[in-house]
Structure formats: structure tokens, C-alpha cells
């Protein structure tokens, strides 16, 4: 094999792998895999005006209380977290059947009150169950009405209709600190 004198000499690619490994290790060390996920919450704006005296009838409100020992009290009865979703769903989809639960879904309110000593884990679990209840009733309504899940609705008007039927009225009590002015 007679090589022409003028040809470009072959580039030695033996260290290419080393360079690539170096880059690879750099990226492995400096990056993380997890995509952040979380429970989305819309906080109510802060106003100086005290909220108007609730004219909501007692039956429209599902009262959820969590105490500092992470115990759950729903409508004055002790409940475990795994039963909370069903209870909330019953409240939302009651439509006046049970006199202790909401009269219509559009008026139904869930009121969540927690203690300053409640653990964050418990709070997230409770919040998650309440969100799950809302998501499921919306899904079910959307399925029966449009044949697809709520999350898969594309038309703005359809989304609005489901939202109007089951508005997410999840109110959190203004924090009160006992013993402080």
C-alpha cells in the first residue's frame, strides 16, 4: 500500500472514548433525574376585609379537621384517611339525597382546618385525598357526559361545564394562633 505523500494523515481517535467518558461522568454527577411533581394549590389572595358571615347552610360544608396528633375529624366523626375520599365524593355527588350532605354539587364546599402541630405528611395526605375526590367526580361526570376523562377534554366549553358542575371549593381556614394576639 503506497500512501500518497500528500494525503491527510489519519487522525488518532484512540482517546475519543476517554474524552466521551469524561463528559459522561461529568453529566452523571451534576444532573438529577427527577422531574418535579407536586400538588398544585391556588392560594386565596390576602385581603383586609373580613370574610362575610357565611350564609352557607351547614349541610353544604364538609368540615375536615386535622389535629396535632394527626387525627382526622370529618363532620364531627373520626375517620381514617383512606375513607376520606369516599366521604368527600358522597358529599359532592349527594344532590340533596342525604339531608346531612350537600344539596347540590355546585354549592358543596369542603372546609379544611388544621392545627399548627399537624405534620406536613398528614396534611399532604388529606389534601391529596380531597383533590382525588374532586378529580374523580369530575372524571365521572365528564365520562358520562362526553365519554372521555376530564383531563382529556379539549374543548374549552366542555371543560367549563365540568368545572361549573363541580367547582373546586376547597377552602382552608385562616390560620388562628391560639394564645397570641
Amino acid at each position, binding site marked *: 500500500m503506497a500512501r500518497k505523500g500528500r494525503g491527510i494523515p489519519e487522525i488518532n*481517535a*484512540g482517546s*475519543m*472514548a476517554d*474524552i*466521551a*467518558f469524561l*463528559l*459522561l461522568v461529568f*453529566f*452523571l454527577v*451534576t*444532573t*438529577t*433525574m427527577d*422531574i*418535579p*411533581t*407536586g*400538588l*398544585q*394549590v*391556588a*392560594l*386565596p*389572595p*390576602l385581603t383586609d376585609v373580613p370574610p362575610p358571615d357565611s350564609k352557607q347552610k351547614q349541610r353544604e360544608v364538609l368540615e375536615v379537621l386535622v389535629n396535632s396528633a394527626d387525627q382526622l375529624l370529618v363532620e364531627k366523626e373520626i375517620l381514617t384517611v383512606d375513607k376520606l375520599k369516599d366521604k368527600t365524593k358522597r358529599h359532592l355527588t349527594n344532590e340533596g339525597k342525604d339531608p346531612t350532605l350537600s344539596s347540590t354539587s355546585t354549592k358543596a364546599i369542603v372546609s379544611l382546618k*388544621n*392545627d*399548627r*402541630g*399537624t*405534620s*406536613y*405528611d398528614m*396534611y*399532604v*395526605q388529606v*389534601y*391529596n385525598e380531597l*383533590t*382525588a375526590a374532586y*378529580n374523580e367526580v369530575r372524571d365521572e361526570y365528564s365520562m358520562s357526559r362526553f365519554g372521555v376523562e376530564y383531563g382529556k377534554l379539549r374543548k374549552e366549553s366542555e371543560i367549563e361545564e365540568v368545572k361549573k358542575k363541580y367547582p373546586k371549593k376547597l377552602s382552608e381556614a385562616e*390560620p388562628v394562633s391560639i394564645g397570641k394576639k
Partner: protein
Amino acid sequence: MSKFKKGKGKESAPINTSALPDIVFMLLFFFMVATKMRDKEMMVKTQLPQATEVEKLEKKSRLYYIFCGPPLKPEVYGTTPRIQLDDAFATVDDIQQFITLQNSKKDEDEVKYMTTSLKADKTVKMGIITDIKQELRKVNALKLSYTAAKELRED
């Protein structure tokens, strides 16, 4: 002619490694695409709670991070849960300033899309979380996300 020729036959052919860079580059690109940069040094422990109804957060550039949890070095900082903003410990009173400062760096019309990602440890009490929420409401940063790990519902 020597009967005991050295080398030939006994020595196996060298492994062709010319495809090695290609393989490594492929791995490299996979990791570049599938991961994101770790940009904050954690000062507090945040073992996230689990939830089933989590949603993926939108663009990373539209997130503010607030960390809350017991310090990672309890021998130096104690065990009381602390708040971390950026790379340093902070108090509840610093949150307003932090958000305002961050908002001022953004476009005006982008500010309303900003979400605050609250990464808090499971063991933290709600008192401190409530305080953080109140501070966020004071600066009108109303979109909040309780960062939680995805958990599948078993039923």
C-alpha cells in the same frame, strides 16, 4: 524453519474498540436529555411526602424553590426545621423579600405564571408551612405546589 514460532496463532486478535466512543456518546446524550442540572446545594433534609394526585410542574424557569426541613448537619445547626432559600438558611420574614427580588428579575407578564415549589420534609409541622403560605399570600405569589413524590393508588 522454527517449529516454535512466537506470537502467531497464540496471541488473540486485538479487540476492535473503534465503536467505543460511539457507544459512550450515545450514553452521554441519553443522560444529557433525560436529566437536569442540579443547581442548589441542599442545606436541609427534604424527604418528600407521597401523593397520588401530583401534576408535573411546568417549565423549570417558572419555579421558585422554598425548602423546609431539619438541617442536614444537625451537629452544627441543630434539629429544628429551618427554611432554605437559594443556598442559605432563611427565616420566614425573608420570604417576602426573596420573592419580590426574584420577581423583579422576570418579565412583568411572566410573573403571574410563577409557581412556588415548596419542598418540605414529611416530618415538618404545619405551623411553619402555614407561616410560609401567609408570607406568599402577602406578596401575591398565589400559585403554590406542595412538592410530593408520585405514588400509585392501590385499589
